[in-house]
């Protein structure tokens, strides 16, 4: 029983820390800088698609030719699991390379699309990112060589050599990366740079008139946060042990983080943390008790989306600034 409870707690924690990366990025973009982004799943998907290929780098290292994305995916996973059961270095190197490649690619794409989107603001900017993200999701679902299409790509167990501790190590990696992300974003929010971002959010024209190059700063923020969103995409795949393009959809990867961000408190990183915790716990409770909810008049697979919509509406009506709204910065003199 204790082991089951521990497993549940670890599962909730992993889920929480994974979503914390998304809500932290959203807080930086929307909460602090006023850059509306409804397409967080764009960079997460890019990270996942890159991982779909770099994950099987070991096959090349070992000189094995297999169509790891297509018909030979199962065999490729079997072969790599066997190899990784006695080799820890190669999979760690693969993961390390993946992270570096994802960071560089997402930074580059963040810079390009950040520049392109400069002329947009508000809802139009949000829709721009949403359309971009939905497009990449559908391309991933249709174009098999990218990420296995509708069937997806199964991944090997990178920590097979650690036997029973493999899953635990994967969860620890997710938690560590999330904590690092949160700590970095907290530093930003408490610095003069964070204050500068808020001036752009409040009034971009006045910010320009006091000497701030707001366009350059906005591109920097999009580029910076895109790195972490891409890495979050890799972590999602590591956790699910597979890459499925449809899992990087607007509901799971964009709209739920938006609810967490609004519920917790826009512009307040601790608010984002609280909102994430509340929503993750509720979602996990729904997941574990789904089969006891059959008395409801809707199919159980629709409970979560309905919960998302209802909670968002209630939050916007009753507490639009969230549970922990942004606090004014007070001088002590």
């Amino acid at each position: 029983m204790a082991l089951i409870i521990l497993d549940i707690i670890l599962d909730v924690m992993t889920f929480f820390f994974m979503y914390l990366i998304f809500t932290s990025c959203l807080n930086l973009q929307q909460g602090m800088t006023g850059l509306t982004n409804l397409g967080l799943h764009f960079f997460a998907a890019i990270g996942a698609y890159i991982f779909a290929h770099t994950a099987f780098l070991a096959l090349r290292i070992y000189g094995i030719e297999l169509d790891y994305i297509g018909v030979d995916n199962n065999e490729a996973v079997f072969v790599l699991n066997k190899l990784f059961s006695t080799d820890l270095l190669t999979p760690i190197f693969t993961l390390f390379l993946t992270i570096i490649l994802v960071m560089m690619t997402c930074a580059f794409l963040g810079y390009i699309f950040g520049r392109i989107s400069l002329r947009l603001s508000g809802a139009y900017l949000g829709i721009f990112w949403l359309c971009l993200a939905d497009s990449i999701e559908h391309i991933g679902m249709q174009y098999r060589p990218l990420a296995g299409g509708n069937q997806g790509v199964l991944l090997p167990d990178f920590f097979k050599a650690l036997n029973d501790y493999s899953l635990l190590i994967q969860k620890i990696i997710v938690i560590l990366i999330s904590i690092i992300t949160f700590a970095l974003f907290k530093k930003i929010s408490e610095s003069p740079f964070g204050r500068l971002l808020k001036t752009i959010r409040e009034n971009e024209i006045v910010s320009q008139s006091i000497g701030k190059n707001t366009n350059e700063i906005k591109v920097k923020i999009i580029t910076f946060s895109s790195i972490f969103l891409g890495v979050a995409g890799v972590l999602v795949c590591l956790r699910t042990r597979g890459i499925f393009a449809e899992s990087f959809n607007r509901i799971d990867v964009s709209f739920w983080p938006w609810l967490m961000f609004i519920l917790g408190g826009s512009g307040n990183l601790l608010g984002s943390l609280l909102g994430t915790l509340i929503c993750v716990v509720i979602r996990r409770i729904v997941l574990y008790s789904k089969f006891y909810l059959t008395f409801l008049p809707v199919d159980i697979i629709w409970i979560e989306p309905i919960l998302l919509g209802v909670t968002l509406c209630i939050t916007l009506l009753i507490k639009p600034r969230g549970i922990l709204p942004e606090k004014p910065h007070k001088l002590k003199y």
Partner: protein
Amino acid sequence: MSIILKIEKLTKKFGSLIALNKVSLEVPYGSIVLLIGPNGSGKTTLLNCISGLYKPNEGRILYKEIDITGKPPYEIAKLGITKTFQIPMNFKNLTVNENLLACYPNHPGEKLLNCFLKRKWIIEENNAIQRTIKVLKILNIDEQCNQIAHNLSGGQLKLLEFGKPLLRDSELFLLDEPVAGINPFLAEEILSYIQKVRNEYRKTFIIVEHRLDLVLKYVDYVYALAEGEIVCEGPPQEIIKNEKLYEAYFALK
């Protein structure tokens, strides 16, 4: 250099509307120049062209002999020109002190990489705070320093607006109706302070103002605009006797 700002045949159009029509003027160093004229004569448009908020269609703007025509606002602000707005535009959800701290120039903490290393910016932040407190005390709104700007009165917002170029230590101040909506005693105090800053620090001011009864005794030179053109100019004692000024205000031809 005796001229800090030179404008040559500046023209600004909004579609078929000519807001500024070949306007030329010069502003000497350390002077207080007043722009007057009826509503819609192009005064604010002129300030917006100088500060980079509008791009002129024709003409040139030379600041310290550097052509700044059409440069973006942030570049012009970095050169030492700061503009205040007719209707105060502040960062409403930030506190009064944050509104001013954001104006502090060349802050190392405003670089993305530096914000992870507090020791790189904490000294400058403390300097910025000291300067902010000094400016707030000068403006007499230091007690409101931790209030959200949104909660300030109209007059206090005007004072906060004036605090920005002070904190930036600009060389050329473009003040758009700095004493509008302020009680006469406070208005006199602000105008006296403008003169003091000019005398002690040799700063230059271009002021747009309607309240001639208050402002004329503080300025050195006046340009009167009407329908986008300069109709007359001169020292304040002469300008008020100029018939063209009254023709412009009362639309007499």
